[in-house]
């Protein structure tokens, strides 16, 4: 597969990076991703559009489990949580921190959990906890590694959270596919592969970047009212 980024020279940027995050290319290789405050703010607005399609209330607690190098992807979601008047509760998405996740679920009245991973599920099980019971009643955005394990939980609303190359996509309550920021990215499906082009200036621009992820793009209206296109993964 031909993976092409128009700029890989991370020192030649017009926007000042606030952090050097990472994304994974189609072969799973970790690539440094400089990320500016401008991009952070734009992605925060995307995440806020997504959160607004839920009926969370001021003061609701939202858990984000992540790893430190997911800052580019999830720091904007944290900021959207702040902007929505919700309260962010944080833990690592590692096996080691499953104890903290269990404690948080027990102690805090959570409304949702974002980026739940198989490492967290493994850690919870190793500690003797049943994730099915713990996640009962929650809205859970599951990372791809955990989605299939969680989707059968009848009392949990399981949604997709995905990294698509340098972009993120999240499902709304109607589960019609994972929304992706239409102002930031032009997303197409070429030969059943998702291909990204950045639409506005970024620290690292992308043009017809082949992500290696198989799926199709729906541009039609969604019941949630959010016009951001939706990605549906191919079987």
């Amino acid at each position, binding site marked *: 597969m031909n993976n092409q980024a128009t700029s890989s020279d991370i020192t030649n940027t017009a926007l000042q990076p606030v*952090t050097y995050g990472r994304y994974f290319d189609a072969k799973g290789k970790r690539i440094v991703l400089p990320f500016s405050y401008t991009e952070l703010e734009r992605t925060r607005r995307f995440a806020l559009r997504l959160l607004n399609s839920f009926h969370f209330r001021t*003061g609701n607690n939202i858990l984000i489990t992540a790893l*430190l190098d997911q800052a580019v992807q999830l720091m904007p979601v944290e900021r959207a949580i702040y902007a929505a*008047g919700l309260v962010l*509760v944080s833990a*690592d998405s590692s096996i*080691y921190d499953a104890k*903290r996740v269990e404690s948080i679920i027990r102690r805090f009245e959570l409304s949702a959990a974002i980026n739940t991973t198989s490492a967290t599920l493994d850690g919870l099980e190793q500690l003797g906890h049943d994730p099915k019971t713990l996640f009962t009643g929650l809205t859970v955005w599951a990372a791809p590694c955990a989605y299939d394990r969680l989707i059968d939980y009848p009392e949990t609303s399981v949604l997709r959270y995905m990294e698509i190359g340098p972009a993120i996509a999240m499902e709304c309550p109607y589960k019609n596919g994972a929304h992706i920021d239409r102002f930031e990215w032009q997303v197409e499906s070429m030969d059943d592969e998702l291909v990204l082009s950045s639409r506005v200036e970024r620290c690292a621009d992308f043009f017809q970047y082949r992500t290696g992820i198989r799926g199709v793009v729906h541009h039609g209206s969604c019941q949630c009212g959010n016009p951001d296109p939706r990605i549906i993964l191919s079987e």
Partner: protein
Amino acid sequence: MLDQSNYQYFDPHIETLPREQIAKLQESRVLQLIPYVYQRSPLVRELWSKAGITPDDIQSMDDFKAKVPFMDKDTIRAYRDQHDDPFGGLTCATAPHLKGVGFTSGTTGDPTPVPRSERHISTESTLREAWQIGARPGDTICDMLFTFRDGLSLDRWMEAGFITAPVQHLPSEIPTFIEVSRQLRPTVLFMLSTPMIMALEQYQKETDDDLTEALSSYKGVIFGGEALNPHFRQLVESWGLEIFILSSLGDIATTMECKAHDGLHTWEDLALVEHLDPVTNLPVADGERGELVVTSLSDDVAPLIRYRTDDLISFTTKPCSCGRTHGRLTPLGRIGDEMIVQGKSILPVDILPLVSEFPETSSGLFQLIRPQREVDVLKLRIGFDPGSLTGELNALRARLLDKLSTELQIPLSIDMISNEELIKNSPPNKIPRVTKT
């Protein structure tokens, strides 16, 4: 833009504030804090009610130190359990001003919540600390924090113009760390731990990579989480790196060495530091062993008030050769880790240099078995490197027993376990130094 390359301090007027000005600032902040927190924090109201005081009783710093009751982790946890309040009665604000909840490590039970606004108090201290290592606007900080349990706030470095490069704090991520170091040439590493040093050593053995070259951009690396093993200090320094020890300033901010390496600078504009005898609660003299007790001076979400940290420290307010005026502490251990063996106080820090002397146990991995605080015989579990073992394991045990008994003058028993086994189920940044079984 102002050329700040030769500016010694990030926040020059605050970092060098004369002691009497620090005292005035602290008193002003405490007197503003008292009515605010009393009106809002249910835990503070409950504690003060039991102590029979109200804000009207506090008219000066002397009143504060004489009358205000202490709180500690157990107090917060008890309030949390009794009132089903996950914040332990600490919060003075609700959403939307309350933005997030971080946590303590949770080593001794359910993690204690640390609620906050969008502003992280520790930002102020970490910026001063990175600056004193030598980072300047435009520099990259390699952020390899143990966990991000305080949120993914990597833009907090932005206020000083620093750019972060986050890397997972996992031994398996050492190749990524090396790659990022070569590609982005960071000036500060925040932060190293014992397992990461071991992983770097292993990486060097396996790849023969030149770590001195790969890490040559660093003006300093920050180490924290536990006491630094002398063997590992030597190893890290052999890669051309200067180590700066960092610790938590009672869950309020961070505290770190400056280039003088003569104690960790507390930030007394952010936290009122008291250094008290854990039994009598009276102030301890400069340089003596005492407990760190802190009051948050710039937190309007969940300020800790006379919070007993359980940390044993020595403390001095004598000026540092770096020119900063804020007091300096030296961490000695945790009261909860202290064992009394036939009347003698033993802390992990007493064991570490002795265990590290032996090549087979130079990693300094060990645990004190602490079924209760006072015991007749100290039981130790010591990790060893099977690859370094030249004779019988029992012979190594006997040598360790002889060394430790002679130096510590207490009865001991020792179990040997491979390093790999000991760290297998531990978090990625350290092993628990004290365990019940």
